[in-house]
């Protein structure tokens, strides 16, 4: 391992978060309150959970993320009244895709995060980091 890789592995599991117009402000709020979570958590923002492709989840793991967290709109989506159902389907499809490709489905987690859900987000990140640490690294990269 190079030094860079070692540093990163010591820092904890690498998590990709997909945020949305609804959950992004909640994650921002956590930062505004200076609540801490692992700096190995990176966020890509999308307008809405229903626009996330399952293949992106697989791509993230194949390239080296240890887990993907979808910070979903839940029932508050401004675009789609059935966003929660769509998101469940996307998550189920993505987990099936992970299983097919030899990854544990627990490497994808989804929870609704609203614009004031700062503390929930932090808790999810801590718990998900712990789950992923137990599962071990995807070993990619």
């Amino acid at each position: 391992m190079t030094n860079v890789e070692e540093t990163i592995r010591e820092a904890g599991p690498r998590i990709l978060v997909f945020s949305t117009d609804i959950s992004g402000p909640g994650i921002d709020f956590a930062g505004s309150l200076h609540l801490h979570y692992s700096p190995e958590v990176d966020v890509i923002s999308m307008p809405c959970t229903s626009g996330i492709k399952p293949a992106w989840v697989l791509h993230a793991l194949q390239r080296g993320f240890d887990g993907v967290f979808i910070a979903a709109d839940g029932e508050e989506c401004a675009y789609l009244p059935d966003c929660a159902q769509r998101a469940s389907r996307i998550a189920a499809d993505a987990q099936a895709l992970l299983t097919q490709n030899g990854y544990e489905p627990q490497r994808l987690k989804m929870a609704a995060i609203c614009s004031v859900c700062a503390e929930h987000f932090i808790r999810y990140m801590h718990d998900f980091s712990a789950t992923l640490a137990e599962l071990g690294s995807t070993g990619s990269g």
Partner: protein
Amino acid sequence: MSEERRIGVYVCHCGGNISDYVDVAQVIGAVEDEPGVVVARAAMFTCSDATQQEIIDDIREQELDGMVVASCSPSLHTETFREVARRAGLNPYEYTQVNIREQCSWAHTDDREGATRKAIRLVRAGIARTRLSAPLEPVTVETVPKTLVVGGGVAGLRAAFGLAEIGLEVFLVEREAELGGQVGNLGAIYPHGNDGRALIARLTRAVGERPNITVFTRAELVEKSGSFGNYQATVRVGGEPGERIQIDVGSIVVATGFDSYEPEAGELGYGIEGVLTLPEFEQLLNQDGALTFNGKPVESIAYVYCVGSRQPGGHEYCSRYCCSTAVHDSLRVAEHSPDVRQYHLHRDMRTYGKNELLYSESRERGSLYIRFADGEPPAVEKLPDGRLRVTVRDLLTEGEELAIESDLLVLVTGMVPRQNEELTGVLKLPVGKDGFFNEIHPKLRPVETVVDGVLIAGACQGPKSASESVTSALAAVSQSAAILKKGSAELDPLVATVDPEKCSWCGTCQEACPYDAIGRLALNGKQVAAVEAAVCKGCGGCVPVCAEEAIDLQGYTDAQVRAMIDGLLQEVAR
């Protein structure tokens, strides 16, 4: 391909908000040699006029075709930097905002090394996205210079009059038989004691005198179709089935007001004679002369505040107007009946702003204020002589129990969201956790909703006083004017697009779109899906349902998202 791009990267210190926790120089060093990057600079405040000008100079002198700004949340300054790009002649959709403050420096104040590494990754992802960006042109739509106002209370009336004054044609729809809403039933209202009924009479007269306002009473908005700037609204007049009228409008102002909290039977004695809600008490105060109840003179009044408000698991918000209203009411009582004893039992008094003076005046006139603990509401019982006994533990005398005997008990009830599911469904308006309609941004876009051209005003958005309702109504007027007076409007081009090469028309995307933005088109001898840009809301809900991967959301394309993921992981790959 990436070598051909000419991207400028600007990393902000944000005073010290970022640079106290992130090594900005290290970030610049790590990204300045990324493919496609020709300029990488740090700035103390990227949003300052001076730095904006430097960016503009760079774009012009270095012929930049892409821009990455790494600073605060996109919700704050995306428009600022799109405007910078426009001023410099760069297409604003060639710019990417990277959030290294709320989602990096502030979240990792305990880990400078980790935060710096993360900032580098996020900026790389932003560069990767920008390398694949395309110039996009806003969708221009013609707008109809007419507005539909839903709700004829103080906010709706003032909005209608304001819209008419600036030359727009207005249709005002009111569900009840009379205009006026809740303010139309009120007597003197705070802060200056203006009579609510008189205010409404004045507004109603002004609205009636405008030839460009059409009023429909006993009417409801039952259907809406079309797109921004050009909505077709169906109004049902005269109840079910009634007459259905079709109206073309450019914008819609929703001012449907609030409901008052209705206590449960037995809640703080509600149901006992003499226990009144705030609106019931206000009606009682509209009588002339000394205060009487059921023909008997009133000698003492107790008030309990925050009834139905600030309740965990219930209405958790502060209803904001009720403290000031009850305090103002106590002054009205003192005016006509100076000998009435008044006891105010509260958790906190929130007579915000200038209303604090009303609170001081009420105390000077003899009102007693007694504070109780959040979890220990007063107990209420009826005495044999018909009067009420209110028992409360006074926090300020170390929990001493006080028994107050009074003729009336006023439950200072707040505002709750109006049950309006039908209208919410027709307009597809987002409703917040508290049940009120949601604006896009409470400070920067306080009356706009995610549905373009549908604006919210007054207490349908959250508890407001009459003057605050009018303020928001006038904001909705100016926002409508901004949209409609030009005759055309520009819409965000970040919408779905179909690759006709890949599409083989299965109809799944059309079924996935509740906005009817996707249609079928004959092209080169085959059927393909086509997105109507002015109708598409840009959610991307059609993207993952396409088995052929033929749909992309502009700004969030498959290639861009994959490139961002790769950019975030570049460090590992090296």
